[in-house]
């Protein structure tokens, strides 16, 4: 698709060309602003004409996103964005389709559609804004809220284990899986750009602060000591981190361990571009473990046939085999007889 689009003489867009005429109506201070800004920064870099971009969302604060981007867009119903997005992409594979969703929209009511999208590997870029809360409905716990969390709907503490969205995306078969943070604008922009360029279902979990109902959910990862709690995964490099860049995580005895960096030793390198996912799965587990840093960056990126690609091919194969559909043939097929 990328090729086709680049053939068009794409105007050199600026960030502002992607601002719609709608007033942005998130709470002041909401992390969604940063994600919007970075996305609008990335869009001109893709070299895709504005009219060939479609943003699809569900319902939630995050899902208001399409209103603010000057492209085609669909603000759909709660949890169902993957269905609509799939229909759009399969109908017109020339379009670049983004899907914006929240931890409630994408993992609670919409969980099934999302994993089926990943499984099918339709060429759609998913941005999941994870603020670990239902924002729009004013603060109930979500499938990514921590156990014990006290919210409007859990006055005595939530009893559920949270989902790890990265694990789910990997298990379901997404071919590009990454994580970033609203407060790391540069990393965020790069990650969105990489995801957007990937062919196949690309899934990006974005940690996002809801300063009204779940302020500070990612405090550790965005505060002063954040460098001790984040490890940025870079291809073919070991997992080094820490305020003084002196920590590393390494894979031993089938687990990741944290240790002090010893420059004389060699460590496992990050290699996201392969088909088997056990190590990626172990990386995904790190964020569940308070002792270990949370990885951000690209967990997995593999090149596989897309559903949309296969469908296009199937259509042309069948046309080649059976000839272009013709109404006469359609109507007069089967056993016919004439009455005079």
């Amino acid at each position, binding site marked *: 698709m990328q090729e086709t689009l680049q053939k068009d003489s794409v105007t050199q867009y600026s960030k502002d060309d992607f601002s719609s005429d709608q007033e942005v109506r998130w709470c002041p201070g909401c992390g969604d602003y940063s994600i919007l800004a970075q996305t609008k920064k990335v869009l001109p870099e893709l070299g895709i004409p504005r009219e*060939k971009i479609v*943003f699809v969302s569900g319902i939630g604060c995050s899902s208001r996103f399409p209103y603010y981007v000057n492209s085609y867009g669909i603000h*759909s119903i709660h949890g169902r964005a993957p269905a609509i997005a*799939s*229909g759009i992409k399969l109908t017109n594979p020339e379009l670049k389709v983004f899907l914006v969703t929240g931890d409630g929209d994408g993992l609670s009511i919409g969980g*099934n559609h999302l994993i089926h999208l990943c499984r099918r590997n339709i060429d759609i870029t998913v941005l999941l804004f994870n603020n670990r809360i239902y924002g729009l409905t004013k603060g109930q716990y979500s499938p990514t809220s921590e156990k014990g969390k006290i919210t409007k709907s859990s006055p005595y503490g939530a009893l559920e284990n949270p989902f790890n969205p990265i694990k789910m995306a990997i298990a379901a078969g997404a071919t590009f899986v990454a994580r970033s943070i609203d407060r790391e604008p540069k990393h965020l922009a790069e990650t969105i750009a990489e995801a957007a360029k990937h062919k196949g279902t690309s899934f990006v979990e974005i940690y996002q602060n809801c300063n009204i109902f779940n302020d500070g959910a990612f405090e550790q990862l965005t505060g002063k000591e954040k460098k001790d709690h984040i490890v940025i995964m870079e291809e073919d490099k070991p997992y080094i981190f820490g305020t003084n860049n002196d920590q590393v995580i390494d894979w031993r005895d089938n687990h990741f361990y944290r240790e002090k960096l010893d420059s004389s030793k060699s460590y496992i390198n990050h290699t996201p571009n392969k088909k088997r996912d056990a190590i990626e799965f172990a990386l995904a587990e790190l964020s569940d473990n308070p002792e270990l840093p949370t990885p951000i960056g690209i967990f997995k990126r593999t090149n596989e046939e897309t559903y949309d690609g296969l469908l296009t091919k199937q259509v042309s194969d069948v046309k080649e*085999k059976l000839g*272009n559909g013709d*109404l006469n043939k359609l109507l*007069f097929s089967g056993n016919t007889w004439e009455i005079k």
Partner: protein
Amino acid sequence: MTVKNTVKASEKKQRITIRFAGDSGDGIQLSGGQFTNTTALFGNDLSTLPDFPAEIRAPAGTLFGVSGFQIQFSSTDVHTPGDEFDVLIAMNPAALKVNLKQLKQNGIIIVNKDAFSVRNLKLADYDQNPLEDRSLDGYQVFDVPITSLTRETLVDTSLSAKEKDRCKNFFALGIAYWMFTRPLDTTLRWIETKFKSKPDLVEANSLALNAGYGYALSTEIFTTSYHIEQAKVEPGIYRNITGNEAIVIGLITAAKKAGMELFLGGYPITPASDILHYMSRYRNYDVKTFQAEDEIAGIGAALGASFAGALGVTASSGPGIALKSEFLGYAVMTELPLVVINIQRGGPSTGLPTKTEQSDLLQAVYGRNGEAPIPVVAAQSPADCFNAAFEAAKIALKFTTPVLLLSDGYIANGAEPWRIPDPDNIPEIKIQYAESNGEYKPYLRNPDTLSRIMSLPGTAGNEHRLGGLEKEDISGNVSYDADNHDKMVRLRAEKISKINTLVSSPVLDGESKGDVLIISWGSTFGTIKNAVEKIRENGNSVSWYHMRWINPLPPNLSEFIHNFKHVLVPEINLGQLIKIIRSEYLVDAKPFNLVRGLPFSTRDIINAYYSITGK
């Protein structure tokens, strides 16, 4: 097998109904299909109905495992597969037991005598062998050892015993062909193509067919064959078609006539699955089918496809349609074209999945939150599904609206001859898209239809966003304004009423005043047509109005509905259309309802007529 040449009688008949019945494994559907093709090519009018057991593959010989295929054919018009049958071909005791009550007095029974073993009799709950206990007195029984005769016929072939036995349905078919003076060539040709790669099967099946025919012709058992003359039907090229096939072809035709791709978002469910199956074969017609993870994703993908410029379609049955309710409301709000097909089955809930019913009408008209009007159109017969589907698609596209197309299990699986229209005579469906001028207003309307003027992704300058929050008139921006909401709610309703400018009202059959007006809809068409003919034959008067669009209501109905002493509304539900009729026209219409998972019989309707008139 000793064969004598005997001179046999031949009798003319106007109309015959045959029921083939046996185990699911007995090839009943195949025999029925062959008889149908042969009969169609012979030039009779006909109508057919397969009748599957609810279980996938019930144990052989059981009552609930009986599979049936019914065909009515005639030298005059045929409207239904027939209420009762003249001939029952029963391949085992269970098939006899299950079907006997629908056989006419003095009707013909052909049984496979070999299958009446003690074991099979027990499985069929027979205490005694009905072939021996005189319980079949009053019928013309032909007990033929079909299994052993078939084995004998094939004794020289290389087939295994099991394979030989599987040919016995052709032997039985051969008997039927002789009895109704049908030629064998259509089926012989079919056998040749079907088993092309297995010459021994071609030989065996052909032998069995010929042997059955020969047996009937030569033995003294069968004394009379029947002749049913060609029907005087409209000239043209015909094919036999089921309702679900006709829907598929109708929609593909509509998409082609609109110059669009067709996109079906589906999820299997009885009795709608065949729409997904048939549709998926037409990739070369720019038909994309998407088997979604559930019904919600199915309609969602179809709606996304509509947004991107395809004709979005989704098909399901009761429980699946219920799941689509929320998305239907969204389609109303976004005013995107969409065809939603409901092949109704017995309800509520999972109900009777393989049976027919008309009980989803009020759900179709009202089953959404908020004021969410959706046009509803109902197909009346298998072949008519083509027109209904075409019209549903046309209205969806012309009025940028979801349309609900109602069919049901009876016409979805039933078949009848369809006079194929000349594709060149089918008018195009012209759609007006907005110009690419950077000033696009997604909720600007065509003043005639009140439809939105759409613009597809890919159109530079017309970038816009749709959504489910209330829209500001014209601009389409989100609006919480009170007066705008009232306006939009009324606009959406008014748009649906405008559909009457593009579709024509049904024509009243009969006088425009009198004693009784029957109002009906959907698949009861054929039965009621039969009944109306009978009532008139009996010298009574009746008028009949069969509705196509239930929403909006047809304008001409109000012109005569008050001119009758009685208004009778027969439905296979507890009274749904009648609620709408009474409310709209304040006429004291009376219901006639039977909710047995089965089509009405002609007699049911005639009785209802007499009971309402007190005659």
